[in-house]
């Protein structure tokens, strides 16, 4: 008996775990557990903002730990740990920092929102921290199983967050849709892992790469099918067309701060996984997967841009615009060069700030009930709340790629990487959708800066914009919109006052400053993204 036990322990010896290497994730998980325990043990309700404040502290600690890792990697080079299942290198630490920042900003935005909607509670922040930890595991994963674990941890928490606003039916609908489709795509992803394992005998990314470099596979059908399924699973997470169709509904239905957080983290983690899997494990099979990524990029660009053009709901518009952004990131990926990858990383990093800030504005303008998301609700915002309008205009300009914002360089780097890689059709398409994008971003800015309906000036822009819209692609939609304006002007004296919670104002200021400051002096972030590419295991 004892002998058998001893034998078992000898066989099943646990791998050495370098806890420091996964400290950022552990901090988040620990924070989540602590918050859950603490809030259920304490009988009195703490002061408002405590939970959010706690999350911010935890996120900051996690960012600190990530920063320490970054420093270590810069000094001692990349390393693998936890039985080679986790890679600590520049690439993964960039994503650790990115997700930590998204969590920090997201919980600040959520605070004001949850209190306004009467939904404040520790569960939200617990879920947010857990999903963050999941995203981080995806970023550091060096093994397909770890990618999958991270993916599920991230997703399941996000499904619940999407349905968090229980009084809004849209919120529940979003959660159901996201869950069912997410499960579907996870299954495909898992099947992909199985096929790859079958073909190469390993789930470890480095082992796969080694195997592929040492063996010539005579029939690679299974391997290729596996790669295809991995691309589909991760393509779903980043909302790449044709796996994007869930995202407008889910973005629209989810509580707005969740949308911002989801748009940042799910996309970042998905791309982290995609980049890692494609380059670490299947770098030698580039010629096989590159055409797929090129087509996905092209489709995603077009679907995002055209979809955004016909929207009258701002959340849906931003959903399509983030599909378009995903297309740009894919363009950098499709180039499959160092310049392309560092362009994609830069794009993702700056996009995080822009998208969280944008949805921060939307969460405020949505007002109580989170329902005012039509373009019309933004008319005259500049007059009612110049701060909100100015920040939003800035973030929208950044999204359209105006010089001296972070968005310009982001687009510039990925497109020029495509040009350098002689992928001219993709470069042309990117520019084309950027030109189209200017239309729907500018339209929103025009609306914010036109006078409230009924006054003469508003009609000017209205007529012009509507006509442009009709001619370029909005069809009947905007004509309806005009009719609504008239009705609104007649029936409504004016929407209720906008209240910008301090925490949200802080996020808006931070994201706005980041977008301009690093647009003007971009060296730091560009270097960061570039270093992260070089310091890859």
């Amino acid at each position, binding site marked *: 008996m004892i002998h058998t036990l001893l034998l078992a322990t000898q066989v099943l010896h646990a791998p050495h775990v370098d806890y420091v290497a996964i400290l950022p994730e552990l901090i988040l998980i620990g924070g989540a557990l602590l918050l859950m325990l603490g809030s259920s043990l304490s009988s009195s309700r703490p002061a408002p903002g405590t939970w959010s404040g706690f999350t911010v502290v935890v996120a900051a600690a996690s960012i600190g730990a990530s920063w320490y890792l970054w420093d270590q990697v810069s000094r001692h080079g990349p390393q693998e740990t936890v039985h080679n299942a986790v890679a600590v290198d520049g690439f993964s630490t960039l994503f650790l920092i990115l997700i930590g920042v998204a969590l920090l900003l997201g919980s600040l935005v959520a605070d004001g929102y949850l209190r306004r909607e009467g939904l404040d509670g520790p569960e939200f922040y617990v879920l947010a921290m857990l999903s963050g930890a999941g995203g981080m595991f995806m970023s550091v994963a060096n093994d397909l199983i770890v990618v999958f674990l991270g993916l599920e941890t991230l997703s399941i928490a996000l499904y619940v967050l999407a349905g968090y606003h229980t009084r809004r039916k849209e919120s529940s609908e979003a959660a159901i849709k996201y869950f069912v489709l997410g499960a579907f795509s996870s299954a*495909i992803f898992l099947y992909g892992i199985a096929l790859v394992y079958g073909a190469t005998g390993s789930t470890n990314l480095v082992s796969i790469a080694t195997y592929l470099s040492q063996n010539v596979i005579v029939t690679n059908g299974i391997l290729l099918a596996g790669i*295809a399924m991995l691309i589909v699973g991760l393509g779903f997470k980043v909302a790449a067309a044709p796996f994007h169709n869930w995202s407008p509904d889910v973005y629209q239905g989810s509580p707005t701060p969740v949308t911002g957080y989801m748009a940042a983290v799910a996309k970042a983690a998905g791309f982290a996984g995609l980049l890692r899997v494609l380059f670490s494990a299947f770098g030698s099979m580039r010629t096989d997967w590159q055409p797929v990524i090129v087509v996905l990029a092209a489709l995603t660009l077009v679907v995002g841009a055209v979809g955004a053009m016909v929207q009258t709901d701002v959340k849906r518009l931003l959903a399509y615009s983030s599909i378009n952004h995903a297309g740009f990131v894919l363009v950098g990926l499709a180039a499959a060069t160092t310049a392309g990858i560092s362009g994609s990383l830069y794009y993702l990093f700056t996009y995080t700030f822009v998208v969280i800030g944008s949805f921060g504005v939307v969460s405020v303008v949505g007002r109580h009930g989170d329902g005012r998301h039509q373009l019309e609700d933004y008319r005259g915002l500049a007059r009612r709340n110049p701060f909100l309008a100015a920040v939003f205009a800035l973030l929208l300009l950044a999204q359209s790629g105006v010089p001296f914002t972070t968005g310009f360089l982001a687009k510039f780097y990925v497109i020029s990487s495509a040009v350098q890689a002689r992928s001219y059709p993709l470069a042309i398409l990117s520019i084309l959708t950027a030109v189209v994008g200017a239309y729907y971003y500018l339209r929103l800015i025009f609306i914010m800066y036109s006078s409230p309906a009924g006054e003469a000036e508003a009609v*000017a822009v209205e007529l012009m914009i509507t*006509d442009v819209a009709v001619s370029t*692609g909005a069809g009947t939609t905007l004509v309806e919109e005009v009719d609504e304006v008239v009705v609104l002007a007649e029936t409504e004296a004016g929407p209720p006052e906008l209240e910008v919670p301090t925490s949200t104002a802080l996020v808006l200021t931070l994201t706005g400053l980041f977008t301009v400051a690093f647009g003007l002096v971009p*060296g730091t972030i560009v*270097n960061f993204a570039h270093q992260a590419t070089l310091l890859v295991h």
Partner: protein
Amino acid sequence: MIHAAPVIILLPLAGFFVLTFGGRRLGDPSAGWLGTLAVTGSFVASIVTFLGLRSMAPHARSVVQTYYSWVPVGGLKVNISALLDPLSLTMVLFVTGVSSLIHLYSISYMKGDPQFRKFFVYLNLFVFSMIVLVMAGNFLFTFVGWEGVGTCSYLLVGFWFDRETAATAAKKAFVVNRIGDFGFLLAMFLIFAHTGSLDYHGVFAHLGSVTRGTATAIALLLLLGAVGKSAQLPLYVWLPDAMEGPTPVSALIHAATMVTAGVYLMVRVNPILALSPDSLTVIAILGVVTAFYAATVACAQNDIKRVLAYSTMSQLGYMFLGVGSAAYGAAIFHMISHAFFKALLFLAAGSVIHAMNDEQNMKKMGGLRKYLPITSTTFFIAWLAISGIPPFNGFWSKDDILGAAYHKSPILYAVGAATVLLTAYYMTRQVVLVFTGQARWVENRPGVEGARAASAGHGGAAGHGGDHGGPPHEGPWIMTLPLIVLAGASVLGGLIDLPFGKLKFLDTWLSPVASGAGDLATESASLRIALLLVTLALAGAGILIGSRLWGARIDRPALEPEVLQRSYYADDISSAVLTGGGGMFSRALSVVVDNGIIDGAVNGVGHLARSGGTVVRRAQTGYVRNYALGIAAGTVLILAFMLVRAS
């Protein structure tokens, strides 16, 4: 002295800000005066800078002033910098000069308009953008200015937005210019990929490694941008419609400055064009065809401003012909001449429209010479200048271009010369219809006494305080002074570049930055004189035919066939495409893209928000399954592709 350059840029910007934030306090006329002052100050600073640059040695006259260095990593290095060289200063001088006059004129023209202040806000912003465009030291900031002038143009075309046509026109300009922007952007990426720089100096220094094919691609893409901005075939449809804007806007933006940006860009990149003779040929053919095409259409227009719009297009065609013939000096020369006489024609037309209580149909004018002596005299000068009669400036500049065109190909010359005849003809027709003959407006004018009744009748939209029901009369001095100054410039403007050896001031001045084979073409003197006489004879013939035909009778349907009146039906086609086709296209897209296939709705917008109580039913019975189907279909396609590649 060239350190005055920042002042040129900053004054209109300051004007813009002061008028935006303090305009309400300033009140109507002062806001206009402030705007005018800002631009005039900018003009003075341009002169100072110009003198500074002139005092330098010719080969040193290309100074880059860097104001802010924007140095991201990864090869891209863009500075906010001004490139001060003969080309940019020539542009800045005439842009700010003409702008000052038109600002002054607008104070009176826009008097009483409810949005008077806003007009000057836009106008100052336009001048600022235009200066950025021409003074920028790199492609990126030229593009920023390019977008800026475009935006101001839409805002100003749609200024009288309650006219539906004005809003439609603004829309057209927006859409068409997007096509051009696309070409410009793409060219920038190609340039950066092949030379590693976007600074003009940097790009031109690295052209050695650029192949002929790449140079042609870059040149043609930039040409696409230029064609959109400068209203050449086939992207011109927005220009005639842009005449819906207030007349000073037509004069400034759609005649003198913005539309010449395309020509400027082509001249600016002449080192790239030099690498690609094919692109030069394309530019020349495009230019001469546009010149001829637009001139034929102008012959049949009845709206006083539309004649001038097509004429602008035609004259821009000449400038492209000049560029295509590698006669960059000549193209710039004609650009300046054209800025003077065309701005004058528009301002005088504005004066006529003003006097006619917003009537723009030339068939309802006539005999105005008696009533508008200053307007008519200055208009006559511009008419002779555009027709190419010596000694007015148009004669010299057009002759320069045609000489160079002959050097490139006699066919180009022949078409260009035929256009001279047409130009003289349609301008004469306009002069005859507006200023001579019967006063056909009398019956439409409700009594010379009933002064107030007439002005109450004319649209409040224009609203420029016309209380003139009596006989037509001249505007105040601030309207006539710009006319007189521009007329003077049209008379004497030829002096800046006479085709006699040392008198080619402009060519010599521009030669360090823009000298092409066409400028240096040395035909024998006798051939030059022969060509000159031919065009002169054609211009004379045009004037003669025009005055004979239209002096006698104003009703000649045979000479105004519908096909020309409707500009070969191009408007109908483009409208059909933009509205009908575009609408269908957009509906189709929204069906395909936004879940329409799935739920069968006309547009799939916001069904979440709309669906309310049916959410659960819908979530369980259709959507998710169908979304999953979409994902599955995508998976199958990718799998199929991969398995095809499998060995």
